[in-house]
């Protein structure tokens, strides 16, 4: 045990003497969160719109007013006829055009329906989609408010975004960044620190010493468990206090799941370092094989459900996907363990599989 403690202390010395890495370790979560939180945002404010009102009656004026006072839209210009729509979009400033048909109020009153068109500039499809939804939401609300018994009953869907009513981007990015950074720190850093010893030749010395191989591996891993765990707390803390992302569920469960995920990523790091002897390769494998799939295939940015089947299958082989599901469930929905036990089990299985594979590799190397 004394031997082992000495070994762990040595590992901490390595880490604390390397200021640059240390800065990256603790600076990265903050920087990434701020970047994702403020720069890449899905919310749209003050989008410029144009209105072509062929009717100019009481109802169309009311609807226009509602739309413009919502905070999402600013009136760029009023169009005088329908043919102006094309050139307006082409100018590029206007993102949305709303067209009221003629005799709008009258037809609404008499026939119970009137013509209204919402045109979006879909050269940026995401933005267009969001704006169209905002606008139709506002219009529906208005119709609902004037809907009296005179008009035959109509079903008007009311959309409410559960768990993230403001559709805030950070709600999505906090779990994503957790998954990404913990993976990076745990897998990359451990695989680097083990291959460094191999490159230096000190690994052989350690293996010749009375330290058991398992003690060497665990000793290497412990400091990174601690660091990754601190990072997890930084991300959760910043998410809560800077961006107001709530933690609805049990925080102990959340931290325990994080620890499981860290363990899984660490075993992956050990596996990588048991395959290669060079820091260069370990780094490349960690970055290319771990980072890109974590970002692209975990459902962090792009929804898994919309991918081709082959990619969907690949997605299910990505441990971060399960972790993101778990944190979202616990943080945003406040779900307990019974809702996430499947994902937890899968993560645990990944960890066990990686450890078994490393042990097997290790034995082959010894033989």
């Amino acid at each position, binding site marked *: 045990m*004394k*031997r082992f403690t*000495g*070994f762990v202390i*040595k590992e901490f*010395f*390595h880490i604390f*003497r*390397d200021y640059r890495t240390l800065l990256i370790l603790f600076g990265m979560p903050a920087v990434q969160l701020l970047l994702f939180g403020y720069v890449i945002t899905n919310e749209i404010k003050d989008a410029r719109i144009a209105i072509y009102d062929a009717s100019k009656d009481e109802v169309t004026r009311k609807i226009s007013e509602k739309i413009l006072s919502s905070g999402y839209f600013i009136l760029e210009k009023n169009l005088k006829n329908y043919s102006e729509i094309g050139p307006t979009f082409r100018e590029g400033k206007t993102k949305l055009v709303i067209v009221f048909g003629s005799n709008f109020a009258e037809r609404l009153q008499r026939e119970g329906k009137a013509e209204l068109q919402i045109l979006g500039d879909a050269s940026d499809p995401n933005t267009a989609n969001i704006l169209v939804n905002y606008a139709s939401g506002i219009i529906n609300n208005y119709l609902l408010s004037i809907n009296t018994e005179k008009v035959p009953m109509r079903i008007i869907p009311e959309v409410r975004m559960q768990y993230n009513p403001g559709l805030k981007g950070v709600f999505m990015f906090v779990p994503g960044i957790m998954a990404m950074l913990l993976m990076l720190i745990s897998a990359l850093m451990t695989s680097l620190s083990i291959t460094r010893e191999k490159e*230096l*030749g*000190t690994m*052989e*010395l*350690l*293996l*010749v*010493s*009375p*330290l058991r191989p398992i003690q060497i591996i665990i000793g290497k891993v412990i400091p990174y468990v601690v660091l990754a765990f601190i990072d997890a707390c930084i991300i959760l803390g910043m998410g809560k206090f800077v961006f107001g992302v709530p933690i609805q569920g049990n925080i102990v469960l959340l931290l325990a799941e994080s620890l499981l995920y860290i363990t899984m990523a660490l075993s992956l790091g050990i596996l990588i370092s048991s395959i290669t002897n060079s820091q260069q390769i370990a780094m490349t494998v960690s970055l290319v094989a771990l980072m890109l799939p974590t970002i692209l295939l975990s459902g962090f940015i792009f929804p898994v459900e919309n991918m081709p089947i082959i990619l969907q299958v690949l997605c299910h082989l990505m441990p971060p996907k399960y972790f993101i599901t778990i944190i979202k469930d616990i943080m945003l929905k406040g779900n307990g363990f019974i809702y996430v036990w499947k994902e937890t089990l899968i993560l645990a299985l990944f960890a066990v599989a990686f450890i078994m594979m490393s042990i097997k590799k290790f034995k082959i190397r*010894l*033989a």
Partner: protein
Amino acid sequence: MTNNENIITVKDLVKKFGHFVANDHLNFEVRKGEIFGFLGANGAGKTTAIRILCGLSYPTSGEVKVGGFDIYTQRNQIKRNIGYMSQKFSLYDDLTVYENIRFYAGIYGLGRKEITIKAAMLMKRLDLESAKDKLIRDIPQGWKQKLAFSVAIIHDPKIVFLDEPTGGVDPIIRRQFWNLIYEAARDGITVFVTTHYMDEAEYCDRVTIMVDGKIAALDTPSALKKTYSATNMNEVFLKLARATMVA
């Protein structure tokens, strides 16, 4: 200090990597307290053999005992009784002289008091007291080499294995390094050393010359020179190598 008690016995040691035979039926004994040289060109199988003796890899077949312990079943006992230094430089660059000593002494299970005493003695002997808190990367190569050796024997092992300890080091430092080896041998530590510098063979009590995975000769340097009517070990080696090439 040399006596006839064997501390390492190797019988019919074979190590294959696929179809390549790195060690082809090696048979030898190392006596307690001697400096045993293991010579050969690069790729002759020296490192493979030393790695097996240290427990870094398993033989394909054969019987090997180190310090009276079996390498298949008593690895842990062996590990406690041996020291090892490889051709690669093996101290931590980003730790200080003292931290390196303390770390290696620690993993061999030395107590805190013992470590303090041993470290002080070691640094005094190597004239390193002024460099105690310097990082390894900031001290000269010669010192590093000597420190690495002293650290490898800090736990007073029965045997120390040195795998090309003087590779890529200038002649003066090599000479100083051999003085340290003699000192260790005088203290009763058996030294098993591989090298491809033939002049270093003269410093050994007995020498094994390996050619293509086989032991081509094993005797004292003077006896070998007599047998092959050579003036130095380099000639002995060249004659042996040529003989196997013709055959």
